[in-house]
C-alpha cells in the first residue's frame, strides 16, 4: 500500500509517498519516514488523519502499535493520506526531569555552604547557622534526590519524549525558584520559627514525602512494562478518595517545608506549584471520568476528590 505524507499546509513531505506492505504497522511507517528524511526520527513525528471539512474536534492521531491499514477508509485499503507535523527536537522525559531537578539539588547547598551573601551586600563572616536551616537543607536535598531516583527507577512515562524547548522552560522554573527559596532560608538575617513548629513542619513533610513515594509506586504498577500508556482507574491508599493523590501529597509536603522554614518565597512557590498541579489534576480527572463512563462494560469512575480534599 502507498502512504501519501503531507504537511498541514498540503505540501508533500516525502515526494512520491511511501510504499509499505499491507500488514505494516504505524511504527514501520515512522521508521520509513525517518529513513527517507533523516532529520525526523520517530519521536519527532506527529502523524494524524486529515480532518474532514466541516467536522470539528481534534484530528485522529495514528498510534504506533496499530496497523496502517486500520486507518484506511472502507474499500480503499491501498492508499492513505497522512498529515505530518514536526514536533521539533525531542528529549527523553527522564532527561528533562533529571536536569530540572539537578538544578535545585546543586543550587540550594551553594547558598548554605558558600559565603555568597557578601555579593548581595550582607556581612556573612560571623553568621550563626540555625539548626532549622541545616535541617531545611537536608530536607530539600532529600526531596530532589528522591525525585531524581524516582525518575530513573519508578516512573513509567506515557510519552517517551518531550520537546527540547521544555528543557529551557522547566529548568528556568525549577532553578529560579530553587535559588529564590535558598536565598531566603539560608540568609544571614534569617529568623527561625519555634522549635516545635519546625519539628512539626518537617515531620509532616517527611510523612507526605513517604506517602508520595507510595503513590508513585502505585501509579507505576498501573502501567504495564511494555509502555502501553493506557489508562486505568487508580486505586489503593489515598487514590481511593482522591484522583491525583500523588499531587496532593506533593503539595502537602511543600506545606510542611514552609511551616518549618516560614519564608514568603517558599509560600509563593507553594501557591504557584499548587496552581500548576491543580491544572494537571483537573485534566486527568476529566479524562478518567470521560473514559470510564460506565457504558459498554467499562467501569464507572467513582466519585472522588480531584486533588485537594476537603476543598476540591
Amino acid at each position, binding site marked *: 500500500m502507498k502512504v501519501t505524507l503531507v504537511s498541514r499546509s498540503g505540501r508533500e513531505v516525502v515526494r512520491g509517498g511511501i510504499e509499505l506492505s499491507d500488514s505494516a504497522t504505524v511504527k514501520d511507517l515512522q521508521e520509513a519516514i525517518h529513513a527517507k528524511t533523516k532529520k525526523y526520527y520517530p519521536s519527532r513525528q506527529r502523524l494524524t488523519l486529515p480532518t474532514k471539512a466541516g467536522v470539528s474536534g481534534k484530528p485522529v492521531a495514528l498510534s504506533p502499535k496499530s496497523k496502517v491499514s486500520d486507518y484506511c477508509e472502507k474499500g480503499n485499503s491501498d492508499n492513505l493520506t497522512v498529515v505530518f507535523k514536526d514536533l521539533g527536537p525531542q528529549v527523553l522525559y527522564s532527561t528533562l526531569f533529571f536536569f530540572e531537578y539537578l538544578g535545585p539539588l546543586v543550587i540550594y547547598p551553594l547558598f548554605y555552604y558558600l559565603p555568597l551573601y557578601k555579593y548581595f551586600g550582607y556581612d556573612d563572616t560571623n553568621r550563626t547557622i540555625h539548626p532549622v536551616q541545616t535541617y531545611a537543607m537536608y530536607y530539600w536535598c532529600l526531596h530532589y534526590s528522591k525525585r531524581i531516583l524516582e525518575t530513573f527507577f519508578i516512573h513509567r512515562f506515557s510519552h517517551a519524549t518531550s520537546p527540547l524547548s521544555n528543557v529551557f522552560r522547566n529548568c528556568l522554573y525549577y532553578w529560579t525558584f530553587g535559588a529564590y527559596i535558598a536565598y531566603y532560608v539560608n540568609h544571614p538575617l*534569617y*529568623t527561625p520559627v519555634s522549635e516545635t513548629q519546625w519539628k512539626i513542619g518537617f515531620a509532616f513533610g517527611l510523612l507526605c514525602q513517604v506517602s508520595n513515594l507510595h503513590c508513585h509506586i502505585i501509579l507505576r504498577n498501573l502501567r504495564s512494562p511494555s509502555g502501553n500508556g493506557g489508562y486505568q482507574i487508580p486505586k489503593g491508599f489515598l487514590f481511593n478518595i482522591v484522583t491525583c493523590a500523588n499531587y496532593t501529597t506533593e503539595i502537602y509536603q511543600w506545606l510542611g517545608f514552609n511551616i518549618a522554614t*516560614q519564608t*514568603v518565597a517558599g509560600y509563593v512557590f507553594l501557591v504557584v506549584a499548587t496552581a500548576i498541579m491543580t491544572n494537571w489534576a483537573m485534566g486527568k480527572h476529566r479524562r478518567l471520568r470521560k473514559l470510564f463512563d460506565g457504558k459498554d462494560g467499562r467501569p464507572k469512575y467513582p466519585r472522588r476528590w480531584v486533588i485537594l480534599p476537603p476543598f476540591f
Partner: protein
Amino acid sequence: MASFFSTVKRIYLAIYNWAVFTGWIQVLIFAIKALNESGPAAVYDAVEKPLQLAQTAAILEIIHGLIELVRSPVSATLPQIGSRLFVTWGILHSFPETRTHILVSSLVISWSLTEIIRYSFFGMKEALGFTPSWLLWLRYSTFLLLYPTGITSEVGLIYIALPYIKASEKFCFRMPNKWNFCFDYYFASLAVLGIYVPGSPHMYTYMLGQRKKALSKLKAA
C-alpha cells in the same frame, strides 16, 4: 438585550477614549509651552497633573482586556502600561532629582504623540464606527519612530534614577523579619531594566505584525 449592552459599551468606550485623549492633548500643549518659555527643566512641573491622570487612567485598559470588553491581548497591554506606570510613579514622582533631565521632554513628547493618535483612533472607531485611513496609517506607522524614542527615554530615566534609588530607603522592606522576606527597590529597578531587553523587541515586533495586518486590510478595501 444584547444590542442594548453593545450600545452602552460603545458609548462608554467612546467617552473613555475621548476623555483620555483630551488629557494627552493637554500634556503635549503644556510641554511645548514650557519648552518654549522656560526650557526642558520646566517640562515636568508643567505636565505633572494631566500626565499622572491620563497615564493612570490606562489601568482601566487592562481591566477592559481582562473582562473582554476590547480585543487587545493582556500580554501586550500589561507590559506597556506597567512600564509607563513604573516610570510615571516609581521614578519621576518618587525621585524628584530626575525631573529636570532632558529625557523627560523626549519621554513626554513621545508618549503624548503616541497616545493622542491611539486614543483618537479608538475614539473614532467607537463613536463613528470607522476611522479615516490617514489616522489608521498614523496609528500603525508613528510607533516606528516613537517606540524607540519613548523606550530610550524610559530606560534612560530609570538608569539616571538608580543612584538616588540606592541612596534612599524608599519602597524597601528589610530583613530580619518573621516572614523572612525582603524587597530592595534598587534590585527591582535593575530587574525592570533587564525586562526591557527582551521586552522591547517583543513589543516592537508585535506592532510590526499589527501594522502589516492593518495596512494590508487597508489596501484590500
